[in-house]
């Protein structure tokens, strides 16, 4: 493994352990960055046996040094020269295992005391090591704005004493929920770009990795397992989400041969384990809906009636517009376009919301209400859809105009 790959592979663990030890994310990141620089210089001839432990041991020293210097500066005394690095001691320390604090770090970054809009950026920055530049592009926000969000959140964590600990189970309904919601928002950013062309799509693999880490660290939490399953089911379909011309392909029309079976199997294993824990939740149902679509790989048909039932169950947890609109689309397939349209009109969706107009257009077309279908496609196209969806909607509209 090259040095850069080692930094990337172990960065989160090292930064997490440093942050937990010094309760200061900036210090942890600075010390890690300095240590990476030093590693590049000294590893060239002899890379250590355990790079993670080496990085941690060296970064702890660097952090202590940085802290001491800051304290000296604060007392307005002249700076002392840095202590000579001691290679012998470093090698000995590098053989000792260090604690895995990644989960505590995730909980700290997603603490309810941190502004919700800062949680996603902070988690991806600190836990996944995404650069501010990449985050800014993924969230379509200017770099200084993202940087300010992250800086303020880090300062709050340090100055307000947000702990880098996994909270007790009693606090999980609030705390774990905040963590899962943060990851869901991050993944939604990645998923909405079917083409995978934008920077947001790059978040997909990061959330895939992070949700996997979370599932590995909390194997008895069904909603954690379900989120990991959900992300795998969705990412498995990525190769089938566009046709050769770059237009979006709806899930029920995708070519199952293009789906990534190993990822589907991994998701299925996670969801099966979640089910054995017998504590239902919204993410388990969402993952089951994704799973039902994927079952077409074996049966050749989409089980729409089952999907409607799953949406009904999901409504028990999430009575939101997104769920209602999705349920209406499934109901149209299972019970006919008229039933679907009736459900759609009572979903309470805003008229200027793209998924509503796109769904309405498709259902009207199926119901033979062609004028309304054309009007809805036109309305959907006016709502600035992403390129792949625009192409899809445009094609449907053209077909109706012939």
């Amino acid at each position: 493994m090259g040095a850069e790959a080692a930094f990337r592979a172990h960065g989160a663990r090292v930064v997490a352990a440093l942050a937990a030890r010094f309760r200061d994310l900036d210090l942890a990141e600075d010390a890690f960055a300095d240590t990476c620089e030093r590693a590049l210089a000294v590893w060239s001839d002899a890379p250590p046996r355990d790079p993670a432990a080496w990085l941690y041991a060296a970064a702890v020293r660097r952090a202590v040094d940085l802290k001491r210097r800051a304290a000296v500066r604060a007392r307005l005394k002249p700076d002392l020269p840095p202590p000579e690095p001691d290679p012998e001691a470093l090698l000995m320390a590098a053989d000792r295992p260090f604690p895995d604090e990644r989960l505590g770090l995730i909980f700290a970054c997603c603490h309810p005391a941190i502004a919700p809009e800062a949680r996603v950026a902070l988690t991806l920055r600190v836990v996944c090591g995404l650069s501010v530049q990449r985050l800014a592009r993924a969230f379509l926000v200017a770099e200084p704005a993202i940087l300010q969000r992250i800086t303020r959140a880090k300062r709050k964590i340090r100055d307000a004493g947000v702990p880098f600990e996994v909270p007790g189970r009693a606090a999980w309904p609030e705390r774990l929920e905040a963590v899962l919601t943060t990851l869901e928002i991050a993944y939604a950013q990645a998923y909405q770009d079917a083409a995978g062309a934008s920077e947001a799509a790059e978040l997909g693999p990061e959330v895939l990795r992070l949700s996997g880490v979370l599932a590995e660290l909390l194997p008895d939490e069904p909603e954690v397992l379900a989120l990991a399953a959900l992300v795998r089911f969705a990412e498995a379909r990525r190769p089938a989400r566009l046709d050769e011309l770059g237009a979006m392909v709806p899930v029920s029309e995708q070519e199952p041969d293009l789906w990534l079976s190993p990822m589907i199997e991994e998701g299925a294993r996670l969801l099966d384990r979640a089910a054995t824990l017998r504590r239902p939740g919204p993410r388990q149902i969402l993952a089951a809906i994704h799973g039902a679509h994927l079952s077409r790989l074996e049966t050749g048909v989409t089980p729409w009636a089952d999907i409607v039932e799953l949406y009904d169950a999901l409504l028990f947890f999430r009575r939101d517009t997104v769920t209602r609109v999705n349920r209406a689309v499934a109901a149209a397939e299972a019970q006919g376009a008229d039933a679907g349209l009736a459900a759609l009109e009572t979903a309470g969706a805003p008229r200027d919301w793209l998924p509503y107009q796109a769904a309405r257009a498709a259902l009207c077309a199926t119901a033979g209400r062609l004028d309304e279908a054309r009007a809805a496609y036109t309305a959907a196209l006016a709502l600035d859809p992403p390129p792949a969806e625009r192409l899809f909607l445009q094609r449907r509209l053209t077909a109706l105009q012939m």
Partner: protein
Amino acid sequence: MKYLMLIAEPENAYEGEAGEAKLTEIVGKHMALVAELQAAGALLGGDGLQPSFTATTVRTQGGAQTVHDGPFAETKEQVGGYYLIEAADLDAALAWAKKIPVVDGGMVEVRPVAEY
């Protein structure tokens, strides 16, 4: 770490006969909380304040100081008391904050004390 927990409540909740009964109930709960904080060695200080109509504000602007009747801002909820506590971290402080008795619509702001 030291945390200041500022209590803000809608003051009209304590008006009238029902309000007085409410006040007696809440004060009783504060006494119990004070005992619990003391037993845990977490209490550094705390008091209730007179209602906000007793407040006077000194404002400094453009080099001049003026004295005004009333609190910082005339909002529905007003600061009515505080606790100063010692807690290991924010989660520990928030656990105490959740135990502070308040009327419906009441709030507790938890602020770390700056250490120099």
